[in-house]
């Protein structure tokens, strides 16, 4: 089975379970955050994807990390993906779940990366600005990423609007290299 179809299949299954448990929004949000943490942490990624590590131990890692911070349903769904040996697909599955969940609410997911946490008021104004800029009703999901140094980068589908300091430094690097 092609990887894209497999990811779609897992996302659809998780979406149906979350919808049946009436926790679609929460599960979608938590999965999105877990996926970002998975991408950012090499030790976590290695622990969950290493085939030499037993599934029970991987499940123990998930419980230790998520047990008290996320809903049991989300923990179980993450455990389901990891025990199936698809931990490496977890970010893509989480993105697809968030996208489908947002679509179910006639919204588009806007992944927003900043160096620091944003307060609710700022997120609300950012959401309004993104709605106007993209012409879509977006659902903002904030990811704290210190590598952006400062500013904001938003990705809505294929559209990326980058206003980060790291992006400006990269542009400066390219300009210097071209001269």
């Amino acid at each position, binding site marked *: 089975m092609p990887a894209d179809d497999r990811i779609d299949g897992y996302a659809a299954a998780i979406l149906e379970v979350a919808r049946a448990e009436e926790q679609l929004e929460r599960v979608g949000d938590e999965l999105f955050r877990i996926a970002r943490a998975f991408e950012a942490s090499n030790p976590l990624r290695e622990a969950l994807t290493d085939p030499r590590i037993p599934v029970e131990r991987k499940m123990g890692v998930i419980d230790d990390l998520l047990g008290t911070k996320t809903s049991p349903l989300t923990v179980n769904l993450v455990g389901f993906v990891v025990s199936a040996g698809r931990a490496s697909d977890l970010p893509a599955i989480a993105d697809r779940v968030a996208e489908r969940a947002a679509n179910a609410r006639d919204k588009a997911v806007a992944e927003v990366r*900043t*160096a*620091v946490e*944003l307060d609710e008021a*700022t997120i609300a*104004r*950012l959401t309004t*600005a*993104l709605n*106007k*800029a*993209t*012409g*879509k009703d977006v659902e903002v999901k904030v990811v704290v990423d210190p590598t952006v*140094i*400062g*500013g*904001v980068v*938003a990705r809505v589908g294929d559209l990326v*609007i980058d*206003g980060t*300091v*790291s992006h400006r*430094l990269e542009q*400066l*690097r390219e300009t*210097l*290299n071209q*001269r």
Partner: protein
Amino acid sequence: MHLLAPIRLLAQVTEEPTTEPSGIDLLLPASSELIAGLIAFAIIFVFVWKWVLPVVDKRLAARQEAITSQLTAAEATKLEAESLLADYKQQVARARDDANRIVDEARQAADALRTDSVSKADAEAVEIVRKAREEAAGERQRAAGAIRDEVAALSLAVAEKAMAGAVDAKAHQKLVEQYIAELGALRP
């Protein structure tokens, strides 16, 4: 002696006891001597005319013929020698011309070779200088590029560190507000 005997006899007959001669008679011979002399002359003349002259003429003719033949042969030899000399001179002139031509050709070939060699050497020298200049320019550009990249990387690394330390909560908030303002200027 046999031929002179009648002449002597005739002289004795005619000789008469005479008086002693004088005057012109001292100069003129005696008649007997004159006659004897004429006869002797005639005999000698006839002898010479009859036997000696033909022999002499024959020998002279032979001699003349031989000389003529020799002169003719000499003339032919002379002509032949002149012809040979002319041929020789012609050959010498031709050989000289050939030698001059060969020397000229050799000189021209040497000149052409020298000119060609000089031209090739000049072209090679120009090419070597051009390549050296290109390589030097390329090396200079590569060095400048490497230095520029290094300076850019260092500058950006310094800038990143400076920015990471300089962006506080207030600056973050300002950057976010600026981003929201810029989003407002965008159109879908």
